[in-house]
């Protein structure tokens, strides 16, 4: 499942190639010429709006269509992180720089590459601006990093609706913008005898609008993959992994992770609230299967290891399926890609057998716990995470384990773009 991981050399070659096409198209669009770009702001040539919006709509439709069809894992795409206020201020500065200088950084490179002197000066200006920025931003570091820092968030996520609605909305907005652009150009055209569009052009436009609308509708009707759809896609791998018990870890291994301050660990306890309140591990979060089903966890920030647990294993296994497709790259479809979600073998019942009752002969992680998911241990009060059993000393009991957890650095979408 896309996107793919390349070796360093291949990624370099591919990126240069993509950049080549990028530069080529920008030049062909006329964006190596500042006059074509500045004309946008005087409304008599709306080339910039047309090219940019068409590109955004094209890429957006293909992107969300391939995500809906399960060809692309959108969770692994580097979506630029939202830092609202710096983006707003920076955007304003960029717009002003655009109308004064006539380029943006990408187009000025193309302009300089085709030997335009103003392009050279513009690139020099950009480099100088970036230099000054680097020297001054430490003086307002907090603003830069915290003002409206919403993280990786898309408009559909912000609104809490399926991406299809927003995709359709953007297509509609683009069509309106294009209609306005054509109207403004005809109204303000330098050439009063400018031809009105031929029938052929009209037919082509109508076709393009229909195609865009249809694709948008398909994106909406198919919908972005829900947790249950991802689980269905990955079912064979999920079943096999659970059967092989490669993700069930021993209580002692979990304890070693809890005692390891180099691991960013997230503990997910899926029992009911009563059991959770009576006893849970230190720093565990109580999350119901229902919430996992609705997609909770897609925003577990950068935790490198996630361990799910219940009283025995049945519920934890179910929870694991949901988190595995949400958190692992490629929706856990592709073999050989890192897993970072594990299950506490034997559940909390076995944990308590070991650390409360000191039954050091409790079975190892390869022995499943087939219990009925009831807590078999009696507590006289709701302890929560008070007391040493919520996180025993590392050497509380003498128990050997074979380490199964591989700590992978979080591969999911850190952020990207120009950064």
């Amino acid at each position, binding site marked *: 499942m*896309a996107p793919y991981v390349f070796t360093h050399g291949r990624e370099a070659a*591919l*990126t240069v190639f*993509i*950049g080549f*096409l*990028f530069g*080529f*198209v*920008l*030049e*062909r*669009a*006329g964006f190596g010429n*500042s*006059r074509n770009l*500045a004309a946008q702001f*005087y409304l008599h040539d709306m080339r910039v709006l047309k*090219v*940019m919006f*068409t*590109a*955004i709509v094209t*890429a957006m439709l*293909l*992107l969300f269509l391939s995500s809906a069809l399960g060809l692309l894992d959108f969770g692994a795409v*580097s979506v*630029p992180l*939202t830092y609202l206020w*710096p*983006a*707003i201020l920076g*955007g*304003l*500065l*960029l*717009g002003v*720089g655009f*109308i004064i200088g006539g*380029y943006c*950084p*990408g*187009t000025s*490179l193309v*302009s300089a*590459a085709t030997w*335009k002197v103003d392009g050279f000066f*513009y690139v020099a*200006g950009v480099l100088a*601006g*970036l230099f*000054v*920025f680097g020297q001054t931003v430490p003086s307002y570091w907090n603003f830069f990093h915290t003002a409206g820092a*919403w993280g990786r968030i*898309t408009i559909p996520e*912000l609104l809490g609706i399926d991406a299809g609605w927003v*995709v359709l909305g953007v297509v509609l907005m683009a069509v309106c913008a294009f209609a306005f652009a054509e109207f403004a150009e005809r109204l303000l055209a330098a050439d009063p005898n400018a031809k009105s569009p031929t029938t052929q052009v009209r037919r082509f436009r109508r076709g393009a609008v229909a195609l865009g609308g249809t694709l948008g509708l398909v994106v909406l009707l198919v919908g972005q993959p829900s947790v249950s759809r991802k689980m269905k896609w990955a079912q064979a791998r999920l079943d096999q992994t659970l059967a092989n018990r490669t993700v069930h870890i021993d209580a002692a291994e979990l304890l070693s992770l809890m005692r390891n301050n180099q691991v960013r660990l997230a503990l997910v306890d899926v029992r009911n609230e009563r059991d959770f309140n009576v006893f849970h591990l230190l720093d565990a979060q109580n999350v119901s299967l229902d919430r996992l089903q609705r997609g909770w966890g897609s925003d577990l920030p950068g935790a490198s290891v996630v361990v799910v647990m219940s009283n025995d294993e049945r519920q934890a296994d179910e929870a694991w399926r949901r988190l595995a497709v949400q958190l692992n790259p490629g929706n856990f479809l592709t073999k050989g890609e890192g897993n970072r979600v594990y299950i506490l073998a034997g559940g909390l019942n076995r944990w308590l057998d070991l650390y409360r009752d000191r039954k050091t002969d409790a079975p190892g992680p390869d022995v499943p716990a087939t219990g009925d998911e009831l807590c078999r241990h009696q507590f006289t009060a709701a302890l929560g995470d008070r007391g040493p059993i919520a996180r025993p000393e590392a050497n509380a009991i003498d128990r050997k384990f074979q380490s199964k957890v591989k700590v992978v650095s979080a591969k999911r979408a850190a952020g*990207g*773009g*120009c950064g």
Partner: protein
Amino acid sequence: MKKQRDPSRLWNPYAAGIALGLVLFGSIFLTGNGLGASGGLSRIVAGVEKTVAPAHVDRNAFVAPLAGGDNRPLDHRLVWMVSGVVLGGFVSGWLAGRVRLETLKGPKISSRMRWFLAFVGGGLMGYGAGLARGCTSGQALSGGAMLAVGSWAFMMMVFAGGYLFAYPLRKAWN
């Protein structure tokens, strides 16, 4: 028979937009990353700073992660992309007969004035791109297609800024 080259001939903007969209989608689909330009330039600046004053780089909170210590600022996908953009722009311009040493400007201002404005505009753009963590390529185009919240706010502000100052600057362009 050789076809006459007309340097003023450009692609239809919608066709160019579709082509650009396909390149953008290809980049995201294959590598998980969009397009970018200012990030690469930022790393080039950091690289120069590192050769001139490495100790200063290590002490600057913004530049240090790019170039401090053992980091190699130029070994980054956005720098490779910048080299591709320059190459692609040159090849396209060369094939179309548009590679020529000239200054593009409005008819009412001198070349020197145009150079000055280009430098000032570039400076503002560079500063803004740093602040916004991206430019029209990385934020507006790439983030826009991914429907990122900040990218759309950014894009609206770029147009707002442009239109706000279009009238006072009309002599520079028309």
